C-alpha cells in the first residue's frame, strides 16, 4: 500500500465454484492486484453459509465503499450473498430507527452476465436492463441510507475471448483504483446505465 487511500474500498466477492469460472476469476485476480483495497471472498470464508455477522459488520464499518462482485445468477445474487444480506444488514444496525451504521456508505455491483447487453432491454429475451433487475439491491441500500452506484457489468461472458476478458478485467481494476483515490467523476457516473459503458466520460481514459 503506497499512501493512505482516500476511500476505503471493500470488495465482497461471491462465486460458488471459482475454479471453473473464466470471467469472474480474472476479475477477482484484477481486484486483488489493486493496492490499498480489501478483498473478501465470501464463499471461501463461509463455505457452509455460517456467516459471522459481527465480523462482517466490523468490516463494513471499517470501509466507505463496497463492491459486490459476483456472477449474475437468475437475475440476482448467488445464494450466499442473499444469506449474507439477510444476516448482516440487521434491523437496528443497518436500518430501522437506530440502524444508522451504513448511512453515507456507497455500493457498487460488479457483475458478469451470460446475456449480451442487447438481451437485457425491453425488446430482448431478458426484458429488463441489469440496472432494473437490480432494483431489490438498490432499494436495500436505499433503506440503509447508502448510495447505489450504477453497476459495473461484463455482458455476454460465454462469447468473450481471452483478450476481451483481459480488457474487462483491466477496466475493472482501473475503476477500483479510481474509486479508491476518489477521482472517479461520480456526477457523470450517475447518468450512465452501467459504470463501464463509457470510461472516458468518468475521466478514466
Amino acid at each position, binding site marked *: 500500500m503506497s499512501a493512505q487511500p482516500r476511500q476505503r474500498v471493500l470488495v465482497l466477492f461471491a*462465486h*460458488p465454484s471459482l475454479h471453473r469460472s473464466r470471467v469472474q476469476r480474472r476479475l477477482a485476480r484484477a481486484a486483488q492486484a489493486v493496492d490499498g483495497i480489501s478483498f473478501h471472498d465470501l*464463499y471461501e470464508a463461509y*463455505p457452509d453459509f455460517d456467516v459471522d455477522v459481527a465480523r462482517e459488520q466490523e468490516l463494513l464499518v471499517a470501509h466507505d465503499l463496497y463492491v459486490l462482485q459476483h456472477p449474475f445468477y437468475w437475475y440476482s445474487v448467488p445464494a450466499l450473498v442473499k444469506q449474507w444480506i439477510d444476516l448482516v444488514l440487521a434491523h437496528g444496525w443497518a436500518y430501522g430507527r437506530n440502524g444508522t451504521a451504513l448511512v453515507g456508505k456507497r455500493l457498487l455491483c460488479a457483475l*458478469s452476465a451470460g446475456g449480451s447487453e442487447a438481451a437485457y432491454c425491453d425488446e430482448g429475451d431478458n426484458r429488463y436492463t441489469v440496472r432494473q433487475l437490480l432494483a431489490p439491491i438498490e432499494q436495500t441500500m436505499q433503506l440503509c441510507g447508502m448510495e447505489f452506484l450504477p453497476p459495473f457489468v461484463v455482458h455476454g461472458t*460465454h462469447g468473450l475471448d481471452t483478450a476481451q476478458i483481459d480488457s474487462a478485467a483491466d477496466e475493472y481494476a482501473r475503476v477500483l483504483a479510481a474509486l479508491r483515490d476518489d477521482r472517479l467523476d461520480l456526477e457523470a457516473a450517475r447518468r450512465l446505465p452501467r459504470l463501464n459503458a463509457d470510461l472516458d466520460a468518468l475521466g478514466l481514459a
Partner: protein
Amino acid sequence: MDAQGFFFQAFVYLTAAVLSVPIARRLGLGSVLGYLIAGAAIGPAALGLVGSEGQDVLHFAEFGVVMMLFLIGLELEPEQLWRLRGVLLGMGGLQVLGTAAVLAGGAAGALGLGWKPALAVGLVLSLSSTAIVLQSLREKGLLRSDAGERAFGVLLFQDIAVIPMLVVLPLLATLVPAAAVLAHGAADGWVAELTGWDRAGATLAAIAAIVLAGRFAMRPFFRFLARSGVREVFTAGALLLVVGIALLMHSVGLSPALGTFLGGVVLAGSEYRHQLESDIEPFKGLLLVLFFIAVGASLDFRLVAAEARAIAGLVLALLAIKFAVLFALGRAWRMGLDQNLLFSLALAQGGEFGFVLFSFAAQNGVLDPDTANRLVAVVALSMAGTPFLLLLHERLLQPRLGTRGRPARAPDAIDEQNPVILAGFGAFGSIVGRFLVANGVATTVLDVDSDHVDLLRRLGIRAYYGDASREELLRAAGAERARLLIVATGSADGTIAVIRTARKHFPGLAVYARARSRLEGYDLFEAGAHRVYRGQLDTSLRTGVDALRALGFPAHPAHRAAQAFRRLDERAWLELAAVRKDPNVFQTRARESIRVLEELLRGEFHEREERDDSAGDSGSLRAEYGKPGEP
C-alpha cells in the same frame, strides 16, 4: 542339546502351534486351548516328540510371563494401578488367605495330610495362572471389563504373595529335605545368606533401584540407544532391561514377573513406551506360545490315567472351591452376576507358580514327591480346563444373563421427566447433551459408569447412574412421556440392549442410536433403532474437507463434495443392510457399492460443478450461447 536337536525341537513346537491354533480358533476355542492341546499332542503321552526336556522348556518359557507383565505394566499408568489398590489388597488378599484356608482344610481331610503340608498345599493352590487368564481375557477383549480389571488386580496380588510363600514354605517342612536345591523364583546367591531385616532391606533396595532407574536413568539410556539409529540395538536394550530386572529380582528372591511389571509401570509415561512395546511384544508372544505348549506337554497322562478318578475329583474340587471363594468375594465387592461369574471362573485354576512351588516344597521336605507330582498334574489339568470354563461362560451362561455389567450399586432415583432421554454421557453423548441443553431442551442423562456419574455431578451436571437397558430405569426416566431416546452407550451389546428394551416397552419413543462402525450400525437398525449415526462419519469428512482445502481446493466446493459423499455413502450403507446376512452377496455388493460411490462422486462432482456454474461459464452454456452475437 546339539544344534540338530535344537532345530528339531523348534520344528516340532512351531509345527504344533501352526497346526493347532488355527483349528482351535476356527472351533471357537481360543488360542490358549489350541496351544495346550498341541502340547499334549506332541508330549510324551501322545506322539512323544518331546520328552522330559519339556520341563526345562517350561521353565525357560515362563520368561514369557515375565515379559507379559512388563508389557501390561507399560500399558498401565501409575494412577490406574492406584485405582486398583482396593481390589489388589482387599480382593487379592482375601482371595489368597480364604482360598488357602479352605483348600488346606480340604487337603487335610481328603489327602490325609498333616496341618503343615496341608497349609502348604492350600497356599500354593490359591494362586491362579497369570498367563492363561490374562491371555484368554485379552483375546476375548475382556481385560478392561469389570471382571477383567479385578482379575488382574487379584493376579497381581498373587504375584506379590509368592514372595512370602517362598519364605514360609521351608518352615512347614515335616520331612527330611530331598535336596538342598533352591528352585526357580527362590532366593539364591548372597541374599539367601542374609536374614531378617537385611533381606527386607535388600528387597526394598531392589524395588527402589527399579523405580529410580526407570525414572531417571532409563530415558537417557534409551535416548542414547535410539540415537545410534540401529534398530536392533534398541531391541537388544529393551530385552536387556527386562532380563536385567528379572535377574535383579531373582537375586533378592522376588518374583521376576513382579519386578518387570513394576519396571513397565515406571516406564509407562515415557516417550519410548510404544517402541518398547513393539520390541518386546514378539518375544513375549513366542515365549508364551512355548509356555502354553510346554504346559500341555508336561501333562503326565500316565499318572492321570493310573489315578483317573482321584485326579479328576481333585481337579473338580480345586475348581469348585476356588470358584466358591472367588464368587463370594465378588458378591462382597458387589459385582454384577455375569461379571462375577466370569471373574470367578477365570481365576478358578491353579497357576504356573504351582509347578515351581510344589517342586520347591518337595525339595524342602514339605511334601512327599508323589503328592507333589499328583498336585502338579492337578494344577496343569485345571489350567488346561480354564479355556473350556471361559468358553462355557461365553456360550452358555452369558447369553442367559442378558445384559453385561449389571449395576453394582442401585440405580439413582430420577426426579425429572424430560422430552429427551440420553443414555451414555461419554465423549459422544456429552456433546449431544450439551448441545441440547444449550438450546433449552431439558435432557435426562443416564450413564452406567458410576464414577463418571459422580464426576458429572461434582461438575454440576445432573446425571443419573443406571443401566438404560432395564425397563424400570427407562420408565423412571420418563420413557412413557418422553419424545426421544438417544443411545450413546459405550459397548455395542449395551446399545443393542437399550434399543431392544426401549422398543419393546415404549413403542411411542423414537430411538436414535450411535454406531461405531458400519456393521454395528446394521445391528442397531435390526434391534429397532429409528435412526443410526455412525460416530466417525462427520469428523472424518470434516478432516477430508480441510485436507482438500490445504491442497488448494476452494472451500465451498470442498464442503459440497463432503455433503455429496455423505449422502451417497449413507445411501450405499443402507442399501447394503438388506443383503448383509449373506456374506457372499454382501462382499460382492460392498465392493460394487464402493465402486459405484466413487463413480457417482466423480460424476456428481463434475455435474454439480456444471450446475453450480450455470449462470457463469459452464461448458453446456457456452456450447449453446457461446457464438458471438447470440443473446
